């Protein structure tokens, strides 16, 4: 993806270049065979890894444990690997400064909670009378610690934190609540909270394969479906070992997907999937785009998050129809910006874009057009690379060294397409740019701030083109429909959901699992809610590594 924030490591050395389809798009979404086009990299058999909480997981967990009003100071930014924070979280190590940020963030949040005895009592579940009230102290630490650590605390851990509470609570000028605040502060700084510890244990019933325990499954389910810690019901289910079977996992997953926290987690997935963190740094030149208000990027992000959310949770439609759908969500400002009929009220509303509007689908979303554009002009290369990456799972190698100077961009009356086509005449550039630029040219009727236009630099725009496999399109809406029908579209999306859930890049040894998931996704009519359940209940998610014979 172009320009990930944080310390993203892109596709380097991992995915390599993907195969291109030799089939003509526009046919059926036949999953089998298309999965092979994902060109999955080889890699070592996965092992259970510490998963550092992503910034979203940390924030959500803190709010779920301490209350939604607890203040949250910033922590280390996510490391995006293959676009996903969840993948970076499995390898990144915390810097010393990062450890300090967690101390500060957990310190100010616990300080806030304990500045009000009523709030403190809600979090603790009981109010210790004094430092001798070991019943309440132990109960509160055990209960809070179980959710924070996503498993029951060991006796040693309970003793450690209870001793801390009584030691500090017994100091001159202190109190038991001050002691409890510091015990919670310690729990929230413990690596057992800041990392999801999911290592697996050998399962005799499964030929000794490393299988996640029920508590580890609770941790995984809460992490992926809620981006947070488990609730008591999930931990109770784990306590009954109900999460050792696929059916038990499905029961809890269905319940969890119906909870509000599932929408929060899905929004983060959408942000990673489409690189929407780039919206935060997408500055536009106010002299060129005076109507582009600073509030728009956040609204556009929300729009796209709601479209994906609606598709999966409410409409429960064909997920790939997102690529050419005319349904979106706008508030008053966004409706006016897109030239849609005004909506009433202050919030977002589901609306249908008029059939004759050139705006359609994912690529017509302001969020995409703005994020993958430059301050003064469009970048067909960035837009094309986005489509290659997010929709077609086609890795583009980085540009070679010694690129010859580009032609002068000041040529009068030349469109962006005409200038870039001249650039692509150079053979050292054309092989890769041919995979990106033509797709971007199809989006040229929308400028860098997402507004429709028919001319570029005084000349008419030509938005026709073909994908690498020959599938033709004419303009943004047509491009969206063409992409929807690409055989790779379904398997590509499946692989993204899979990698995000597992917190690792999909490897060649995942091929069989991915093919099965892609098949059932296609058979379901591309229903992403069912795909999510299929992934979560699959062996790939319940075991540390796919089985050797798989």
């Amino acid at each position: 993806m172009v320009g990930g924030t944080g310390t993203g490591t892109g596709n380097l050395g991992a995915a390599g270049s993907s195969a291109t389809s030799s089939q003509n798009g526009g046919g059926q979404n036949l999953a089998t065979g298309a999965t092979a086009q994902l060109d999955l990299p080889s890699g070592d058999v996965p092992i259970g890894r510490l998963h550092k909480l992503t910034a979203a997981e940390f924030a959500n967990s803190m709010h779920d444990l301490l209350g939604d009003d607890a203040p949250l100071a910033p922590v280390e930014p996510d490391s995006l690997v293959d676009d996903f924070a969840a993948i970076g979280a499995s390898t990144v190590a915390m810097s010393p400064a990062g450890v300090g940020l967690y101390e500060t963030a957990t310190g100010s949040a616990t300080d806030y909670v304990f500045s009000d005895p009523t709030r403190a009592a809600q979090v603790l579940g009981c109010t210790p009378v004094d430092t001798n009230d070991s019943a309440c102290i132990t109960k509160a630490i055990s209960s809070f610690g179980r959710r924070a650590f996503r498993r029951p605390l060991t006796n040693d851990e309970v003793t450690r934190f209870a001793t801390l509470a009584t030691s500090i609570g017994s100091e001159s000028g202190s109190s038991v609540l001050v002691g409890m605040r510091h015990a919670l502060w310690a729990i929230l700084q413990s690596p057992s909270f800041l990392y999801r510890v999911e290592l697996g244990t050998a399962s005799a019933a499964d030929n000794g394969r490393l299988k996640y325990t029920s508590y580890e499954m609770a941790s995984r389910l809460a992490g992926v479906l809620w981006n947070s810690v488990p609730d008591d019901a999930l931990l109770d289910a784990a306590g009954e070992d109900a999460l050792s079977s696929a059916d038990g996992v499905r029961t809890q997953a269905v319940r969890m997907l119906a909870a509000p926290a599932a929408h929060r987690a899905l929004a983060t997935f959408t942000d990673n999937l489409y690189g929407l963190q780039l919206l935060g740094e997408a500055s536009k030149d106010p002299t060129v785009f005076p109507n582009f208000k600073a509030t728009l990027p956040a609204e556009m992000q929300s729009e796209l998050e709601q479209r994906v959310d609606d598709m999966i949770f409410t409409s429960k439609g064909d997920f790939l129809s997102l690529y050419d759908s005319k349904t979106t969500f706008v508030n008053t400002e966004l409706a006016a910006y897109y030239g849609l009929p005004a909506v009433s009220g202050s919030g977002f509303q589901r609306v249908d874009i008029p059939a004759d509007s050139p705006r359609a689908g994912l690529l017509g979303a302001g969020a995409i057009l703005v994020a993958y554009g430059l301050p003064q002009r469009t970048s067909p290369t960035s837009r094309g690379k986005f489509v290659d990456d997010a929709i077609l799972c086609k890795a583009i190698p980085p540009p070679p060294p010694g690129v010859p100077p580009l032609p002068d961009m000041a040529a009068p009356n030349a469109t962006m397409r005409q200038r870039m086509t001249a650039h692509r005449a150079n053979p050292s550039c054309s092989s890769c740019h041919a995979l990106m630029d033509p797709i971007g040219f199809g989006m040229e009727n929308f400028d860098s701030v997402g507004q429709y236009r028919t001319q570029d630099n005084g000349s008419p725009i030509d938005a026709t083109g073909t994908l690498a496999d020959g599938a033709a399109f004419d303009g943004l809406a047509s491009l969206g429909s063409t992409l929807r029908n690409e055989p790779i579209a379904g398997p590509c999306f499946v692989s993204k959901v899979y990698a995000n859930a597992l917190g690792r890049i999909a490897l060649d040894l995942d091929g069989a699992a991915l093919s099965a998931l892609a098949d059932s996704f296609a058979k379901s009519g591309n229903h992403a809610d069912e795909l999510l359940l299929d992934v979560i209940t699959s062996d790939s998610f319940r075991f540390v590594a796919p089985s050797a014979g798989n």
Partner: protein
Amino acid sequence: MARSSRTILPRRMLLRGMLLGGVSVAVPLPRLFGMLNENGTAFADGTPLPLRFGVWFFGNGIIPDRWIPTLTGSGDAWTLSEELAPLAEVKSHLSVLTGFAIKVPNNAPHSSMPSAALTGAQITSSVQLPSIDQVIAPIISGGVAYPTGLHVGISNVSGATSLGTAISWNGPNSPNNPNYSPADLFKQLVQYANTGGAPKPPDPELARRTKVLDAVSADAKSLRTRLGTDDQKRLDQHLDGLSQLETQIQKLEMPTATGTITDPDKAYPNRGADGSITRQRAQAFSDLLVFAMASDLTRVFSFMFSCPACHGNYTDCGLDPTTFHEDYGHRLSPKGVTYATIGFNTGVQFAMSSLADTLVRMKDTPDGAGNLLDNSLVYTTSCVSESQTHGGTDYPLLVAGKAGGKVKGDQHIRIVDENTSKVPFTLLTAMGGTVTSFGMAEAQVNSGVSELLT
């Protein structure tokens, strides 16, 4: 990580004893930073003055024709080039190295090359080795509050590179992400400032924080035994972070920093938002880093003016509010190539002016018998040489400072096609490193640039 803390542990134990007793008593002060021998060349007890090391990084490269000084040699024999002109005030301490080339394959422009320049190795899914500042940190850091350094950044806008927005790494997948907020760094550092008068009883909260961190460390250690090798390393680094926090708390119990600390909100109220590229933001960070080094809170820093291939804008030096990387670096400004070239040159000079802001402050700060820059090395590089073509020859490499007399300064050394890794290896040696090679594979070297050294 093994780090000396000989002046720290006894004092901590003393203070703890004092707190348990519940009364405030006079405690021995640690060795004052100003207690030097008669010549000002070492501490009175013979301990050498500390050395400092910094990496100062700017994205998007240079125009070699305008960067490389015309003449080589030292002193009056050479003069600064057009793009280096802003460094005139520190020419006496500047070593310009030209002709050097990146030796790893340029698998990814703006990633392979800065990875080689900073770590001596190609980038794969992450850097493969720690960056030079983190190789040097354990050698020079002693028991300071921030032994792995302070890491700051001006632009928080990313570039399309796999290096992301960090230029310092403890190792693979272990970035030291920059702090973009001068106000936040001030808030941290001002706590160490000794405002004079009799020692005050420490805030009881400091001792509580230590108790909390002790419990966290114990908890972390019980987890460690269950982990594989890679995760043990990750956890060890977390434990090292906890240990650094404990050291910082010990130092906060008795603030000793006597240097002048500048509040960025007072000195630079109009410096721009965190993450924006302005010279005042660079000046605010320079003030704070110099305070931290002069007060011996840290001996290492990294300063990321802009990240590799940074997509931010340089409006603060009069350029258009566009993407510096595209419109100027790649000359894609709709206003034409000539306009873009002039603007790019302005941008490089802007970065060098900000570097000068850091270096001049160091030179103006007394340290022993000389100044801070005398006892430091600041290594400056970028993510590419010629910005327009993603070139890797004639790589931009600057060294400022004299490492306590080990580095000559005031010279232009030109060695065509020499491995860039030789420069960080030389700096490592000057800082007291004893390893016999630096880097790996194509970028590995086992000798330095002897001309740099006295």
